[in-house]
């Protein structure tokens, strides 16, 4: 058990809709990162949150936004969904000042129709 929990596990949306994915980090972790894993690809970094602020961002449009709460949990929001947003969305937690070992959740499979 990785200790990182994500919800929901599966989600089906239509183009143009908005979606919110949730993540609870492993106990004791203060940093949450989000990755997108398209079919047949490796995970791609979306952004990272620490102390409720976005600290780093990958090459994703502004339609992708996030939030971190005081209890370190996090949300990923995607607006104006496109077919190409269909992917497995992974949350990973770590300690910012730790040895950067990431613990991954099982992901949310998003299908956009």
């Amino acid at each position: 058990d990785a200790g990182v929990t994500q919800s929901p596990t599966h989600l089906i949306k239509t183009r143009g809709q908005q979606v919110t994915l949730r993540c609870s980090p492993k106990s004791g972790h203060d940093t949450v990162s989000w990755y997108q894993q398209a079919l047949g690809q490796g995970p791609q970094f979306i952004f990272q949150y620490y102390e409720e602020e976005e600290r780093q961002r990958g090459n994703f449009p502004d339609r992708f936004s996030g939030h971190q709460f005081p209890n370190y949990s996090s949300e990923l929001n995607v607006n104006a969904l496109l077919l190409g947003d269909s992917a497995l969305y992974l949350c990973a937690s770590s300690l910012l000042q730790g040895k950067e070992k990431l613990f991954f959740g099982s992901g949310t499979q998003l299908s956009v129709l």
Partner: protein
Amino acid sequence: AQSVSQHNHHVILSEAASLELGCNYSYGGTVNLFWYVQYPGQHLQLLLKYFSGDPLVKGIKGFEAEFIKSKFSFNLRKPSVQWSDTAEYFCAVKGQYGGATNKLIFGTGTLLAVQP
């Protein structure tokens, strides 16, 4: 920009065969290197990592990897695979920019199927 290349997309082996999965990265500075494994229906798990020191690192389940700086490579090896090693394997790199945790750059993955 950093990138990671995994040369083998699909590998099929028989049990007891030896395994070597290639991984090359592009980044000129100090790097941290990782191999992650994703078993069917499970989350990504860390197999092993290299930060510094001995370039031959040993991980869980009998896996090892060798960091060759001159070749920008971090190949994963296992002397004798088992059916339970069937999974997708991802190489990842993280550049060192200073104190803050930075993003991991993943390769496209290698799907390993071990036939009993």
